[in-house]
């Protein structure tokens, strides 16, 4: 996949949820130049508060987090906004089955290209990505 193909993300708002600040910073740096906006949250609860205010085009979330973890957040989103695309980042594949509602699952450590590819796939399948 070519990184140029990410061009059409320019109209997309992405919410990234992770309790690890460096990870948040790295993702923000990679996506901010390619997306319309990148929002950040440190756990599920903070993310849910944002989503309730304004729904982003796509949510990327880690699983292990304090206060509200990624699976709880996923469930809440799917209950309230069934069409909202959610990408899960997890340390282990065996944890992934609990996240079968997710639109994509990324296994850590996540490479830049895996991340981009997953985003495109999800958006394409939702007809939100017009390549």
């Amino acid at each position, binding site marked *: 996949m070519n*990184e140029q193909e990410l061009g059409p993300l320019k109209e997309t708002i992405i919410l990234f949820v992770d309790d*690890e600040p*460096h*990870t948040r*910073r*790295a*993702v923000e*740096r*990679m996506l901010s*130049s390619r997306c319309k906006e990148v929002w950040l949250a440190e756990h599920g609860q903070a993310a849910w508060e944002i989503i309730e205010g304004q729904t982003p085009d796509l949510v990327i979330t880690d699983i*292990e987090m304090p206060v509200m973890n990624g699976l709880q957040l996923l469930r809440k989103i799917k209950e309230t906004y069934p069409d909202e695309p959610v990408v899960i*980042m997890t*340390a*282990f594949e065996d944890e992934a089955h609990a996240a079968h509602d997710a639109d994509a699952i990324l296994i*850590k*450590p*996540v*490479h*830049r290209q895996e*991340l981009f590819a997953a985003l495109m796939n999800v958006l394409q399948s939702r007809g939100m990505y017009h390549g």
Partner: protein
Amino acid sequence: MVEWGALDKLFDSDYSLFVWRPESDSSIPDRLGGSLLPDLQAWEEWILPEDRTRRKAALTKHLNSRTRRFKLEPYRIRLPDSEQTLTVGEICYVLAGSPEGQVLSLLSHVTLHSGENGSEDNSRERLELAARATGDGFWDWNLRTGEVFFSRQWKEMLGYSDEEIGNTLEEWRSRVHPDDLPGTMASLQNHIKGNTDYYVNEHRLRNKAGGYLWVLDRGRASRDEKGKPYRMVGFHTDITSHRELEEGLRAFSQMLEERVTERTLELRRQLSKFQLLFNGSKDGFFIHYLKGEGREDTLIEVNDAACQMLGQSREELADRSFSQLFQEEDREDLQAFLEQIKTQGSGIYRGRMKSTEGHAIHIELNAQMFQLANGEACFSSARDITDRLSLEEKNQANEQMLIQQSRMAAMGEMIGAIAHQWKQPLNAISLAAGMIPDACDAEELKETEDIILNQVDFLSRTISEFRDFFRPNREKQVFLACESAAGLMKILGPVLQREGIEVRIHPHEHFSVFGRPNELQQVLLNIVVNARDAFVERGISGRQVQVYHENDSRTGTIRILDNAGGIQEDLLPDRLFQANVSTKGEKGTGIGLSLARTIIEDRMGGTIRVRNADAGAEFTISLPLVESETEAKGKPMNKDQRNPL
């Protein structure tokens, strides 16, 4: 020098007393009675030279034999400037309890040889007076008429009044004890016949009450120019108490002798029994002095086993220094131990003795101090523990291996935690690397580098924590107990969190204990993992494990409380700590908690207990607090100073 008149006055009073000291200068320190006396030296000069020597010899003999009362043979004195000689009797009493053994001498005037004899009656009076002064009975026997005069005191001695006793020899003879009569009469006849100078005899006399007195009978016959006796005078001294005392003494000495014999036999029996025990023992016995006051720790006695143990004979070991029998490098410790024995009386020491070939013999020494007349000595029994030590070492190695194996098994539990711990930073690094292609300036690259290095640090730290936990056989050390729980949770926290288990560590008190930190962590791990398994199996929600740290002045307590529903009652309070008993039934190995007990009780000197609390199990680990440089940190601190773990 005394005037003649004064001396005359002395002899007028029939008898005279003076007190003197045999071993001092010869002056007379004191006088009794009204008589005037010259000093002793002058007195001695008056005695005829031939009699003086005799008197002196008799005095010395009596005083040396410690006789308390004795009568000297009459001796003659010649007064200064006079041809007149007097025969004088002297009775001496050594005064009991007097300083320097003072002697009281009673002098009596026996005869005045001035060419004419003094009248019989006059001399009798004088003798009777003398006898009265000594408490003796006096008798005067006229051999021509057969008449015997018995003094009032003689009669009183037997319990009679003056009128009750007549003037015949029969009065006396009939009262002599039949057993003593033949000997007494023979002695008396012997003197009358002129075979002895004096008549002296001890016999029993019956008194009025029918009892018998022991008397000392002394007398002398006066003879005419042909040597035929015409008169005999004498004294009876009551020596009953003396004889009784003598009898008593004899019986007492006999009894003592019997007891000594008996005791000697007993001691001999004991000695042979002791020798049998001493030499029959398999332990080496060493009796030796303790070093000090210029004395070495010289051997006094050893037994056969000691000789055998060291491969040396008794002769070779004689007079050797006890500590020299030990390996050079152990001697200092041994000396310190023996010093301690002096104050504590006994003790146990482990060290190495040296065989003749120089081999080390591992021994356990049981030492007991005792006092000998010439100093402090010690009874040390040495047991060869080479076999026991190797067994102990083997057991210790087994235990060590088991603990290590169990820790490795825990690795299985932990591997998930390790992987998880590592995935997070790896993810951050991976994503940070993803920032590089977009970086347009040095600043952005720097930020990327910072993120990556930060995560590398984190990885490095976690791997150290893991290594600390798994590293075997670290030296025992003083450490803060609450750091054990905190360190463990750094590793285990994420795994437990993933399963919804919240572990809270309450470092209410910071106290120090002594042991291996990772072994205590292993105990905590076993307990927490058991709780985790119970939570999962029972599907309990709101999972919580609380770890409390509390202490008093001597003991630190770690309390681990969960809400996983508790332990089945038949495993409480003790069975679950036994090997091969598991809280998890078939699924458990039954090793974890039994090892936990080994670690806490055998290796750290504490206790571990368990009970069911309201919602789950409560484990209580008590450990002795340690005195050390970290002790200060162990003291309760106020809130602000507390380590925010």
